[in-house]
């Protein structure tokens, strides 16, 4: 099971269907795209460990690409894939973990978006584009620290 870091977003839904039925929607790009692509666009998805996942997200009229690999693949139970914001100065990717568990005759689906502590960037720079007190020197120093 993937370790979800303390900083995460958790969304969940209970589905009146077996976990096998729910998991069938994770088994191929076509299946995944029927639902994981509302509000964003699934551009690539390979249903296996090491598979590549690309999503396109529209933020204020600009399309942004997020990509990464599947790092955990447990059919019927859990999938985790990384999502790195391409072209950004994020120091690492975020992760999306989707977990299935049987509950009350149906399936509880939990989606965690986590790994924010890897980004190493303040809010202001990311979306507004204004200086928030970080300089490149600090980012490089932090990167060196993290990799030491």
């Amino acid at each position, binding site marked *: 099971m993937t370790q979800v870091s303390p900083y995460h*977003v958790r969304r969940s839904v209970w589905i009146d269907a077996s976990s096998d039925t729910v998991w069938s929607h994770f088994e191929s790009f076509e299946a995944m795209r029927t*639902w994981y*692509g*509302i*509000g964003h666009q699934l551009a690539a998805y390979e249903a296996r460990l090491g598979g590549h996942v690309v999503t396109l997200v529209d933020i204020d009229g600009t399309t942004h690409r997020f990509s990464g690999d599947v790092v955990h693949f447990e059919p019927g139970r859990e999938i985790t894939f990384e999502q790195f914001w391409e072209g950004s100065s994020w120091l690492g990717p975020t992760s999306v973990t989707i977990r299935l568990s049987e509950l009350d005759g149906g399936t509880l689906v939990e989606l965690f978006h986590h790994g924010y502590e890897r980004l190493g960037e303040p*809010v202001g720079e990311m979306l507004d584009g204004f200086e928030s*007190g970080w300089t490149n020197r600090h980012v490089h120093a932090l990167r060196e620290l993290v990799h030491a």
Partner: protein
Amino acid sequence: MTAGALADEFPTVSRPAVSKHLRILREAGLVVAEQAGREWHYTLDTSLLADIQRTWMSVFVPMFDASLDELRRHAESRSHMSEEKLDRGRHLAR
């Protein structure tokens, strides 16, 4: 945690190096330093991380919610369709 206690956690790193790293983390806003007597206590500043998370939440949460609803729609309709087939089969078998 005091600088000394932190340094103890990294026996292969020199004290000056630990102090230097702490200063960098302080400047980056990730660590808060408070003086208690002669010692400095360092704590992780969680507000920056919380800020980062808050921004991305506003972008991703609506997308995730919509996706999960769609998953439920698809999975339940598939499930109900196969239940109907079973029911019809039982009905015909009588």
